[in-house]
């Protein structure tokens, strides 16, 4: 069997140049959505074809790639994208945030602070933060152009009116360098402060919507809010049940069919690293299962 011939990182050089031009424009105008001629990728749109194209355009042979999906390196989506680039670009891959030069992500920013020289590529389903209230693309373009962003606050107002607080927890809108309002992709708002002033280059790719945008290192990123309802990140009452970490984003994991649950780091690499370093939580799953068995007996 002969394998089909691919160019390095799947896309042909001309397409990569086109995408790089869009990326450079995005970097020059932080938070501005740059249209690009999105290509068909050998995977469905929901799989982050925008992020994959950005990654393909910036990847070099010496890069070390990490791919996460909701913080985990081992979901089908993350594993497939990692395997895709291992095969088409023959690049080294890693699950360690600190070791990666390029991190493609869906829905999270790693807990370990990113550093200068790293690039994080976000997979974006809907790049337009104004779309919720203004479906007309012609109109949203003018709104961005003229900095007419009252509508974003209409949405936040609705949140408070309905829930008593700003209930938007994902894709929480930000203002970039006091100019463009940007959708940070469906990361939890917990991660929003990590975007601000990050030494890493942050790139956003929306495949179906054909948009690329960027935050160059050390960009000022502010989460929008009201004076009397200031932006706040999610807080967790308990530390990670596995590694005892606090101040990290936790996922709820159901541990049995009787409503038992525990909260663990959504960033699996962060959690594993901490456990290797000797940290222990209170609810290690094995102990938990034994308890359940004893109760049932």
């Amino acid at each position, binding site marked *: 069997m002969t394998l089909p011939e691919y160019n390095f990182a799947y896309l042909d050089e001309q397409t990569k140049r086109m995408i790089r031009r869009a990326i450079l424009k995005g970097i020059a105008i932080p938070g501005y959505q740059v249209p690009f001629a999105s290509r068909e990728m050998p995977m469905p749109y929901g799989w982050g074809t925008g992020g994959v194209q950005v990654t393909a355009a910036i990847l070099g042979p010496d890069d070390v790639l990490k791919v996460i999906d909701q913080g985990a390196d081992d979901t089908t989506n993350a594993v497939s994208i990692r395997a895709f680039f291992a095969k088409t670009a023959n690049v080294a891959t890693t699950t360690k945030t600190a070791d990666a030069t390029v991190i493609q992500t869906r829905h999270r920013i790693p807990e370990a602070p990113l550093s200068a020289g790293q690039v994080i590529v976000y997979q974006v389903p809907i790049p337009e933060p104004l779309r919720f*209230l203004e479906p007309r693309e012609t109109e949203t373009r*003018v709104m961005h152009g*003229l900095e*007419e962003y*009252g*509508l974003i*606050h*209409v949405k936040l*107002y*609705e949140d*408070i*009116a*309905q829930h008593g607080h700003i209930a938007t927890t994902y894709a929480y809108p930000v203002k970039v360098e006091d100019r463009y309002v940007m959708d940070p992709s469906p990361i939890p708002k917990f991660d929003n402060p990590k975007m601000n002033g990050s030494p890493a280059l942050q790139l956003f790719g929306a495949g179906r919507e054909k948009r690329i945008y960027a935050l160059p290192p050390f960009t000022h990123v502010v989460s929008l809010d*009201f*004076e*009397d*309802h200031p932006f706040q990140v999610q807080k967790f009452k308990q530390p990670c049940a596995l590694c005892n970490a606090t101040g990290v984003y936790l996922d709820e994991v159901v541990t049995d069919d009787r409503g038992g649950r525990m909260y663990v780091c959504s960033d699996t690499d962060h959690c594993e690293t901490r456990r290797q370093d000797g940290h222990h939580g209170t609810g290690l799953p094995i102990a938990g299962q034994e308890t359940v068995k004893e109760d049932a007996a």
Partner: protein
Amino acid sequence: MTSPILSVRDLERRYGDFIGCTDISFDVWPGEVVAIVGESGSGKTTLLNCISGRLERSSGSIQYHMRDGRFPDLADLSEAERRFLMRTDWGFVHQNPADGLRMRVSAGANVGERLMAIGDRHYGEIRDTATEWLGRVEIAGDRIDDKPVAFSGGMRQRLQIARNLVTRPRLIFMDEPTGGLDVSVQARVLDLLRGLVSDLGLAVVIVTHDLAVARLLSQRMIVMKNGRIVETGLTDRVLDDPHHPYTQLLVASILES
């Protein structure tokens, strides 16, 4: 001596070869209500949309007296200035409230939108102002979190009015504001409009084919036919003593029915 708030000269709008309106000149003075009347297809909406900056004109001038004293042609304003004017100093009340409201957000947000658009960032204050304006258009405060889809036609129209007035505009454009309403609720909306217009000292240009509406609200009338003004004058004079044969016909047809 005061000057007009809006001054229209030799305005024309064509749709291809077809004339939507032409040879239109008139002034609107601060605090004055001007009604544009005429049969269907006479060019009322075309004219209103041109002077409110919603439709491009083919030729002519439209000058607006800005708060800072300037009197520029609307075409000489930047798009940003024009849009700012539209959501601060001006209002536009559509015949169909759904065209002027955000049907999927609450009444409070509908009224608060303009405040947020001009930079208000205090939720409590925005809500207080919205509550006050809902009261002024006779919508109970406990409906503030309801969406307009849950409102009757009359309530929607009153909400649209509140949404326009919250920034204390000086000039309001209205296209058949009661045209889509049941006769039984028209009177209430008209009463409310009349009260607000005089309380706030608003200048209004209102398009209507209903001469009773023109009589109730306006001081001055412009009668249009085939895209042209055929008669203008004080509303009472035009209705009681129409000069142009077309106006006479229009008035007579109302009296007969």
